């Protein structure tokens, strides 16, 4: 399946992916009114230090620990391999945060978990982080 990968040698640490992610998942029609002056809760985040930066989002693992550990049956893996969260079932217990080896899950503003679903069901249709990455450090491809 196609997944999002980061090439850390190209990542500038500019955080644009975080804004593009938050906007794509906001349902809003323009970025300024959707995000301006508010804390953002993106599903991708930049990690690193002075030496290196890179973007982290869900790896859509073949054998996903988060899905297996979810106590609420909120996380599931579709036949397409994409791991999705049913937000109305999530009780915000943080078990998925406790088990994800990549640190890819974090709560939304309301305390309910959220995660990268590859923008397949929002208006972007394909990962907005990839589309907007100025240095092509984040790619969406089969590996």
């Amino acid at each position, binding site marked *: *399946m196609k*997944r999002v*990968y*980061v090439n*850390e040698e190209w990542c500038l640490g500019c955080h644009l992916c975080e804004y593009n992610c938050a906007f794509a998942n906001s349902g809003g029609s323009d970025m300024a009114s959707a995000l301006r002056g508010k804390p953002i809760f993106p599903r991708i985040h930049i*990690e*690193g*230090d002075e030496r*290196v930066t*890179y973007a*982290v989002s869900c*790896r859509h*693992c*073949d054998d996903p*620990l988060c899905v*297996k*550990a979810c*106590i*609420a*049956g909120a996380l599931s893996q579709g036949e397409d391999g994409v791991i999705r969260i049913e937000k109305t*079932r999530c*009780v*915000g*217990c*943080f*078990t*998925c*945060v*406790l*088990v*994800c*080896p*990549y*640190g890819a*899950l*974090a709560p939304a503003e309301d*305390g309910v978990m959220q995660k990268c679903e590859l923008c397949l069901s929002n208006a972007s249709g394909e990962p907005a982080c990839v589309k907007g990455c100025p240095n092509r450090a984040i790619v969406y491809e089969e*590996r």
Partner: protein
Amino acid sequence: MENYVIIGNGTAAVSCIEGIRSLDTESPVTVISAEKYPAYCRPLISCALEGKADPGNMNQRPADFYEKNGCRVLFGTKAVGIDPDKKSVTLNEGACLPYTKLCVAAGSSPFVPPMAGLDTVARKFSFMTMDDMLALDAAVTENSRVLIVGAGLIGLKCAEGLAERAGSLTVCDLAPRILSSILDEEGAALMRARLEEHGISFLPGDTADRFEGNRAVMKSGKTMDFDILVLAVGVRANTALVKDIGGDVNRGIIVDRHMRTSVPDIYAAGDCAEGYDSSLGANRVLAILPNARLQGECAGINMAGGDRTFDNAVPLNAIGFFGLHCLTAGSAPEGCAVFEERGPGWMKKLWTKDGFLTGFALVGCEERAGIYTSLIRERIPLDTLDFGLLRHAATTAAFSREQRRRKFGGAV
């Protein structure tokens, strides 16, 4: 052709079915389910009490799960005995069910210590099942004075579920602190403060000694009047079926790393089993949902002729109250080193031994905690990464470029 039988119908059972069906889509599977419901998310019963989960939408799998997987489920039926020679399971109504491969996924039961006068208490409850929850739900009113015996995970989850619904809530426990199985004094104090802010009172180091109707006489001599009593002292693995036929049983049914019991063709998984805890280097009952899922799947695959090993089980607990979360994993073995950090309302403790992270406890600082868990489960030597950085923040930036390339560079 096999004839699979599973005793129990919780997380371990459902995962066992999936494990079996990943290799064998033909042979019949029969599930013996003492409870009358399709497998539901047991941990959510407290959320249902609180009104945050809908008892009608707590199933673990879609409604057509059993049908799709060709399973016959005997709802409301109990297994009462196993005949390992004839290879059959006796049911409570007398019938015998033959098997070629059997999985005992019978979970655990509330442990009620002998307490004088318990029979004089009109409204007493356990908190393990959907029916327990529904009974408590029907009994509680806004005037109820609730006494919960046991300040462990289950007792406190019950307290949270009732906090906005009862007149008063008191939790007692013989242990000097709450959540004593996973937290030290400091961590427990943080969690307790949050619970107290929400009107829950505690009687640490004290427990009910005897009951006189609606009054508990505590060990300390104090008396406590209540309307509703919840007993959440602890749980015991359901081991009897295997113990009765001479199978190896300790606190749980002893299983190897393939989930085999000591009895041929009998497997066990979930809360009833005692398997290898890699953070401890010894066997232990890990009564947590992720373990039931991973053990159940492993058992199912092996029952169907596959070869799956599950050898990196570790304790994992995520519990939170009113927005304060506590995440713990692994163990603090004897002689381990401790790294700690703290601030107002939060603390972090990491335990290391022989160059490996063996466990941690985080209260109020949960960000990316799974990176720490991965160090324990995958036994990543700490000298291969920047532990100085990692101590302060759970980040993959502490890994070498090569480790990161392996983690992020391809399909995982």
